[in-house]
Every structure is written in C-alpha cells, then in structure tokens.
C-alpha cells in the first residue's frame, strides 16, 4: 500500500528554485530517506508533504489526502519532527506530551512514550533544562504522540553524541516495526545506510538517484576504494580498472573496479615500491553520495593528480 505519493513537485522562493520536479512514493512500513547537502531542498520537500508550505506545482497524496485541501485531516494522521522548533521554556516533558496528546483524536499514552523514549528520569524537567539528547527524544515523542500513520523526522540526530545516535536509530527501527511509515531527512550517510529501506538523493532541488542504500553504493562506478601510502609519488592514472586517483601528501586513494587492485599492486611492484598500510574497502553510500552531489569524481581526480605530478 502506498502511504505517500509525490509527483512533479516544484517550489521556488523568489528567484531561487528550491525543489524542481521531485517525484517519489513511499510504501507502508518503509523507512524512506531523503538525503542531500544543506540547502538541497530536503526540508522544503517534507514541509510541502506536511502541508506547512504550499507547492508551486505538483501533486502530493498522503494516504489519499491532499496536504493543502485536507490540512486538518492530514494533521491527525501525520507526525512531524521539525528543525528549528522549540517548546515553552518552563513546560515539563510530561506536560508537553499531555498537551500535544490533547490535539489528537486517538493519542498514544504520554506515560508509555515517556518510558519508550527513556525520558522517565526527566519527565518533570522543564524543557529549557533538558540536554540536547533529551530534547531530541522529546521531539520524537511529540511526533509520535498522535499515533501517526506517517512520521516525518527532519535531521533526527543532529547534535547528538554517538551513543545517543545509536539509541535513536534503534528507536526508529522499533517504531517502524509497529507499522509506522517513516520519512527521514538526513545528511548523515551512516544514518541512512543503517536505517533506510530506500533513499532518494536530492541535489539542487532534483532527485539525483533513488535506490536502496546498497543499490546506490553498487551503482557508483568506483566499486572499490584502495588507500595506501607511498615513499614517492607515482602516476597511477590509466591503469586497468582505475577510475580515479587522489593524493594527499603521501596518502593515495584509488577508486576503481575489481581489476584495479591487482593492476595497482603490479605497477607499484614494477616501480620497486610497496603500498604501505594498504586498505581495501567496498565503496559505500558515502562514496555514492559524494559522486552524485559533487563535481564528477573524474574531474576532482584529475585536478588532484595534476597537483601531484606538478
């Protein structure tokens, strides 16, 4: 069952085009990631989905509802966690959950959410006195208190320490297991890789790619990444299977397919060099993201190797 359908979404602010012809759909129970650099149009897209912004063109359906026309009905089945929002300084965690629960026809029990999100110890703490992680967890709890069918989580783990991030990821998986569909906005690759079933990479307001995290990583031309140090620089461009070479001092990074490793090792052996601290990694979503949203890696690579050979 399709929970969310976005078709040819356009939104501009004055002269600047924020979202340009974005289309995607999200199935029930999916965690769907929207990935992009800052200012790529991620937040604008989800704010249009949430009915907080009016698209210039395009069609959005959330469980059959139009975010603009059916605003009130949409609000009841949609939970949103927003960037740049806050609560009253003196409101306690429990009061905030009770207040937000009062807005919904069939809310979750605030006490249950307090337990689920590990907020029991701070249930009576005022918002202003909460730590960053506690605020973030409260913010997630508030997005879930209405028992939403679709939850939009924007920059979920920004500002959290590594342990809190991992806890939050576990929490999101648990929520999905309860049947909530999740639209996750992020600029962290590890987060998307760990959580998302599918990912749309947005670049300059357009969808640059849409696939599973593994699918995206596999699509990148550089199937393997070799990193090693060399006693002296050697040109490695043009070897079989090598697509890109970057050098930072004596550290070399070579991207290529499966032929690259034997070719590089053979070439180095021929020159009487051995690669120091050699590591071989499969390319990740991170590599895919960089390639999809930056200049093409070929031009970056030639710029860097120029630097080395100069």
């Amino acid at each position, binding site marked *: 069952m399709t929970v969310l359908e976005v078709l040819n979404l356009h939104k501009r602010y004055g002269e600047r085009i924020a979202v340009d012809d974005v289309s995607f759909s999200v199935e029930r129970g999916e965690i769907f990631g929207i990935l992009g650099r800052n200012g790529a149009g991620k937040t604008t897209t989800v704010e249009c989905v949430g009915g907080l912004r009016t698209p210039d063109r395009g069609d959005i359906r959330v469980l059959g509802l139009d975010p603009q026309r059916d605003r009130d009905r949409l609000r*009841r089945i*949609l939970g949103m966690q*927003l960037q740049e*929002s806050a609560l009253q300084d*003196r*409101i306690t965690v429990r009061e905030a959950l009770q*207040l937000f629960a*009062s*807005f919904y026809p069939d809310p979750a029990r605030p006490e249950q959410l307090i337990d689920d999100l590990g907020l029991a110890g701070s249930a009576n703490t005022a918002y202003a006195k909460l730590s960053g992680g506690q605020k973030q967890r409260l913010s997630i709890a508030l997005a879930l208190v*209405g028992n939403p069918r679709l939850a939009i989580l924007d920059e979920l783990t920004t500002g959290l320490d590594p342990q809190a991030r991992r806890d939050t990821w576990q929490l999101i998986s648990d929520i999905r297991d309860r049947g909530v569909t999740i639209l996750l906005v992020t600029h962290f690759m590890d987060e998307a890789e760990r959580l998302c079933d599918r990912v749309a990479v947005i670049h300059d307001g357009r969808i640059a790619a849409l696939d599973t995290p593994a699918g995206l990583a596999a699509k990148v031309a550089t199937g393997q990444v070799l990193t090693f140090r060399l006693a002296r620089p050697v040109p490695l461009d043009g070897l079989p299977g090598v697509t890109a070479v970057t050098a930072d001092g004596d550290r070399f990074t070579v991207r290529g397919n499966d032929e690259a490793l034997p070719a590089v090792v053979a070439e180095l052996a021929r020159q009487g060099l051995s690669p120091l601290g050699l590591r071989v990694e499969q390319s990740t979503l991170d590599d895919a993201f960089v390639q999809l949203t930056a200049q093409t890696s070929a031009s970056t690579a030639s710029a860097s190797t120029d630097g080395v050979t100069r």
Partner: protein
Amino acid sequence: MNATMFRTELRLYFRDVAAVIFGILLAPAILAVLGSVPAFRAADPELGGRSTISIYVPIMLTMAVAMVALSMLPAQLATYRERGILRRLAATPARARDLLAAQALTQLTVLGIGVLLVLTVGWLAYGVDLPSNPTAFVLGFLLVAATLFGIGLVLATAGSAKMTQGLGSLTFFPLMFFAGLWVPREVMPETLQRIGEYTPLGAGVQVMQDATVGHWRQALHVVVLCAYAAVAWGVAARFFRWS
C-alpha cells in the same frame, strides 16, 4: 476550546514570577501609592463630590487590562512565534483559535485576580465603594478586556517580539491618555472628552465607571467597544501567522 492547552498555559504563566508580579500586582501597587496621598482621598467638588481615588479605581483597572492586553499578550505570542513554538504547533491538529483563546483566557484569569485586588485595596484601605451594579461591572470589564485583547492580538501579528513591544507602547500611551490616566476625563476639556468617547479606553473607562455608580445606560460606549472588539478580533484571526 482546548482545556488542556488553557490549563498548561495557566500553569506556565504562574511559573514566571516576573510576569505574575507585573500582571497581578502592578495595578494594586500603583493604587496604593496614589491612595497614600491624603488629598486624593478627600471628596472633590470638581469631581462631583467624589474622591480622586474613587475615580482612579476604574482607571487603574483599565490600565491593568491595557498593559496585559497590549504588552504581555502580544509579546508572549510574538516570542512563541520567534522561538518556533507556534511553528511546532502548526504541524499538529491544534487550531489557531484554541491557541488564541487559551492565551487570552490565561491573561484574563490573571487580570481577574488583579481586579479583585484593586477593588479590595480601594475598598478596605481608601473606602472606595464597591461596584453597586456588579453584573454591569463584570460585563463592562469583560467587554473592555475583549476589546483590548483583540487589539493586542492584532499587534501580535506584526512580527518580532521587539516590534510588537514597540507597537504596544505606542498604542498604550495615547489610549491611556483618553482613559484619563494622567488627567481624569471629568476634568478634560469638552472636546477631548468627546474624542475620548470614541477611543476604546475612553469608552471602556466610562462603561466601568457607570457600572461602579450603578447604571447601565450609555449605549454609545458599549457600541463603540463592541465595534472595536469585532474589528480587532476579525483582523487578528485573519492575519494570524504561525511562523
């Protein structure tokens, strides 16, 4: 009307000590200061045999309403907007009218306490008569509050908290002039009195004063207040912004 929202806002209000002092205690305090001047307590033939302090009781009440309505209420909403609290609420099914009602009722509760204090201080300490027509007095007070809250909510649409506060002061002083804060309306020149009758607070003070001495009449003032209230609430609801 969302009762949880009202309860929450009221609780939050009473956690802010500065706001409680300003909102509840300022008017009784000013009245106590004025009342400590012996001449103000004497019957004055120029005021029709009433004491200055008895004239000032309704003016103090109006001033309390005006301060809360024109300064605290819009500042509160503007701060909520600046901090993103309204933005967060906009993503829920909460309705703008629930928010405005909860805010206005919270401030009204606070004012109610202040009014009781002013009346009690005036009555116990300076022998000012309690309103002889309580129904008319309460209705008059609610009408004045509704009008000023409406104006305050219009100011709250203006934007930032600083902007709203500036506009609040800008509105407060001329309105309070016509309410007779500096010169009681009874001793104003005829023309100023006439103009004052068509300002929200000139009409407001008159309605409350009439109720204090026992009459209803003066349809003009009631009509003036209703007109301001209707226009202000209409504009406030129309131009309300969540972010």
